[in-house]
């Protein structure tokens, strides 16, 4: 955040942390409809895919065309993604869970989200804040299945009617080959 009063900064960060914790608890408690209410209608909910690339300057390979060599590892917005959802598709994902036939979630996964390292910056408009956080999403299902999804998020929160809503979320999972059998949870 641009340097304002430390105390008021602390309050804003606190406020946003509490928003993220409430959001996480709704998801952990499978209250998906209530979760949808925290999301703006124009949300982009996006998780790109990862790859492994040699660093620029690596001596392990000699690029044929050095100038064009890129070491970006995450896919861009028009490429493949794990999630690339709108409010509508998120709503349908939630509706699917309520059909009684979403087999991979019946009995349901049990999840626990640990949100940490929350930092806040000004957004593109006065009503928006850019929020970075790290997370561990722990999921257990069946008898002994356990998954730890560890990553970070870049959110935009927008103040609507005095309440924060999520208007953009970019989720980065740094694992190249996902070790979980699915990503059936919301991040």
């Amino acid at each position, binding site marked *: 955040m641009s340097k304002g009063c430390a105390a008021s900064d602390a309050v804003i960060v606190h406020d946003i942390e509490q928003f993220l914790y409430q959001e996480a608890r709704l998801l952990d408690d499978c209250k998906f409809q209530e979760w949808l209410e925290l999301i703006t209608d124009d949300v982009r909910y996006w998780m790109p895919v990862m790859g*492994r690339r040699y660093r620029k300057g690596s001596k392990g390979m000699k690029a044929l065309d050095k100038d064009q060599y890129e070491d970006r590892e995450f896919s861009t917005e028009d490429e493949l993604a794990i999630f690339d959802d709108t409010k509508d598709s998120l709503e349908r994902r939630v509706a699917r869970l309520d059909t009684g036939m979403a*087999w991979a979630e019946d009995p349901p996964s049990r999840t626990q989200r640990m949100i940490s390292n929350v930092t806040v910056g000004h957004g593109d408009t006065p009503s928006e804040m850019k929020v970075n956080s790290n997370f561990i999403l722990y999921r257990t299902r069946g008898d002994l299945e356990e998954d730890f999804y560890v990553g970070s998020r870049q959110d935009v929160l927008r103040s609507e009617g005095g309440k924060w809503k999520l208007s953009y979320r970019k989720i980065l999972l740094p694992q*190249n080959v*996902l070790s979980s059998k699915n990503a059936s949870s919301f991040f």
Partner: protein
Amino acid sequence: MSLDVDNLVDAEKGLIGRAIYIDPQIYEQEARMVFARCWMYLCHESQIPKPGDFCTTFMGEDPVIVWRDTEGKVRAFLNVCRHRGNRLCRADSGNAASFTCAYHGWTYANNGCLVGVPHQAVAYNKNFDRKKWPLIGVAQLESYKGLVFATFDPSAPPLREYLGEMAWYLDAIFDRREGGVEVFPGVHKWVVPCNWKLAAENFGGDSYHGPWAHRSAMSTNFSARRPRQNDVQRFHLSPGNGHCVMGRQPDDASDAPEVVEYEKEGRAAVRERLGPRIDLVRPAVGNVFPNFAFNRGTASTIRVWHPRGPERTEIWSWVFVDKQAPGAVKETIRLTSLRSFGPAGTFEQDDIDNWQECTQTARGPVARGHMTNLQMGLGEEKFDEELGALASDFCISESNHRQFYHRWSKLMNTKDWAEL
């Protein structure tokens, strides 16, 4: 030592012994008899368009570099340094004139030649000849309509012969329009707790599970597809050699509106390319033996089932689209595909959960002793001259499963391709 798997695969009676999904010894034999011999899908040419472009993949559990050399020729090598066996390239993709091994610095050019051995002149004696230590190339490599395949077996038949009549069905997926298809950058890679054959048989012929296993996704509009009453015949096609395809009716119009429109507009062009057979069936889903699968529709995917032990499969899945499709169609297909397939795919999740449980219940020795049932439509399939394939007589059937496992058991038991 080789096990005879005949008693585990009774394709005639439609019965399968579950050891084939779980026994480590069978898995090991499969590595040698299936994955080290068959033609394996490597990548799509559009992923490595320029000289020096490479991507890394696996043929079974063997790591492989697919590399377009400076002259533009696509090659494939074991991703293994000849010196001490280090993994040569540790990236997924990129562009390289050469790689240098991280251990002692041996350098290989993109034609596979060993071009650098530090201190060779002073440290090695003159009997050491760099030419004898190039990267190990695959035995054969061929492309078919942009799909790059290779085999480690020099005695395997040529790719075109291996594909047989399946070639036309690949045309109908990957070569409908001028320019063929392109693959979106990025790949879904994840590990699932099942035997790879359960995934392969599913894409090869499991029309049966759709309406039940995927009803939740269909009823919430993740797919416009609906099975129809008149999808009655010749839905499952086995063009030979263990390859399997499922079709839609030729006039199917269950895709997203913009996709239906695009298909309609291009219908004549497609017929011109593919011939009149396309008026009989619209190939949609299938599996090229052993582990390359595809689905074409509003949700379109190609994927490889990499074996990773009897109970583990690593799925690599891409989304593809006709190169000349309009931008809006491409975007619809991109989004629909990734919401259906991949780790967060609303269809894929439920499939995998079932494949997992079909694998894991075989851990019990009593459960393992009971054969599973592939008897749907048993004896009702007929060879269809028009389609060049053994065809089921109904829109759901397990005829393709039976062909898949029949081929698998032959390969497991037979060393000589001529006897297959």
